[in-house]
């Protein structure tokens, strides 16, 4: 395992450590946030099981409906938007539990809080990583599920857009719940109870946008409302989850 470029020296002969934390080599908030993002993505790729779980859940739920209701595409088309969105909401809830849990156990969150960097920015980076790992794949999978539920191919852009924007809001809302339930063992049910009421507007507007897209009508109005919710989330949710994380560390 010895690296030939770095021959082992006795500890005493090692040179004095160089450099001091002067303002020029202090990491900026952006550096820190990007590192948090990179770290979470790297970790998720090393542990793919956790990554696949919500996606598999989404795929299973949406394929079970045709079996339970009827294989008639005309009837399925009526419920497609609702099925898609309920499945997407539950799938993103499923992934939420892992958002901060591991970091809380191994002391990473503590180091984040003590880093001198604004915790809000780091929480935002963590939530962004969470969306990239669950929301975005869900948005990319949604058209497949929609097509199998009888949605016309023309509805694909609308469905992708609504799920992509909606899951941004869901990740952010969920991050508050996940941070609030950090100190609690088996927090899954409580997390769902906390998050679902807040997520209802996203469900309503998201399902509406998808439905309009499936019927070939303009889905811009609900999509814009979804985007407004996402922006509201981006502004407020990291603040709230940072505060909740601080409390959990006490």
């Amino acid at each position, binding site marked *: *395992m010895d690296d030939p470029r770095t021959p082992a020296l006795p500890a005493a002969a090692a040179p004095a450590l*160089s450099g001091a934390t002067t303002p020029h080599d202090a*990491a900026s908030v952006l550096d820190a946030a990007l590192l*948090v993002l990179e770290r979470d993505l790297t970790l998720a790729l090393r542990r793919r099981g956790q990554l696949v779980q919500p996606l598999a859940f989404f795929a299973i739920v949406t394929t079970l409906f045709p079996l339970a209701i009827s294989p008639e595409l005309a009837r399925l088309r009526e419920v497609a938007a609702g099925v898609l969105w309920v499945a997407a909401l539950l799938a993103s809830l499923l992934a939420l539990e892992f958002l901060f849990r*591991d970091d809380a156990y191994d002391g990473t969150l503590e180091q984040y809080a*003590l880093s001198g960097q604004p915790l809000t920015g780091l929480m935002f980076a963590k939530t962004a990583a969470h969306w990239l790992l669950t929301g975005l794949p869900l948005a990319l999978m949604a058209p497949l599920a929609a097509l199998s539920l009888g949605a016309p191919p023309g509805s694909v852009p609308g469905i992708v857009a609504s799920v992509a924007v909606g899951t941004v809001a869901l990740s952010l809302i969920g991050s508050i719940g996940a941070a609030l339930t950090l100190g609690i063992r088996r927090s899954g049910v409580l997390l769902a109870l906390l998050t679902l009421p807040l997520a209802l507007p996203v469900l309503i507007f998201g399902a509406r946008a998808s439905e309009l897209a499936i019927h070939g009508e303009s889905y811009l109005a609900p999509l814009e409302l979804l985007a407004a919710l996402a922006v509201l989330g981006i502004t407020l949710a990291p603040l709230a989850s940072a505060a909740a994380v601080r409390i959990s560390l006490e």
Partner: protein
Amino acid sequence: MREHCRASLIVRIAILSQLPENFYFMPREGLEVENLHLWRGERHVLRGIGFALPRGGCLHVAGPNGSGKTSLLRTVCGLLYPESGRLLWDGRDVHQDLPAFHSTLIYIGHEAPLKADLSARENLRYWVGMRRRIGRGTLEATLQRVGAAAWSERPARTLSAGQRRRIALAALSLLWVPLWLLDEPTTNLDTEGQQLVGTLIEEHIARGGLVLAATHHELPLRRQVQRLELMHG
């Protein structure tokens, strides 16, 4: 005139580069803790703790298990809020600007905050990189110094408790912050590792740094340091 300006600038740079490196970042006065009281639920954990830790000072917090050593460290670093008492850093109350105070300290709990699926080197890069840009050379030199060069590519999950400790020591020396808060720094380390802790602490206080170490063992230092004995809460 212009020549003169340039000359004086060069002189100034020359002076600056000759200053000791601690000129930039070590505190003037240090840390002062006054009459700290902390309650955890029904338990009165810290009962009027007070001490002053000047520049280049080291305080050994001793006491049996459950006497509040960890609580004291966590209160000093601002994770726990004391019910009463004051924490002054260079004469200013730290609770007025916690982020600024946090950027002057590193706290290492009894478990090093490492990700099991990342290698030792990656763990260090993410941990330290959040606060300070570090070059590859510095990282390599530090890994070697703490004796981690041979296993720095292994995932942290495969490392022993002592090896994980050594990674924490590497973070300690890479961050270059003035205030070190160490919880049981020598636990799980072999004799050589314990000596390394002692050397790091001695170097740090020699350059004006401050160390607050909580342990019920003796600190592996060659000279006597201040000692704060905590009683059962």
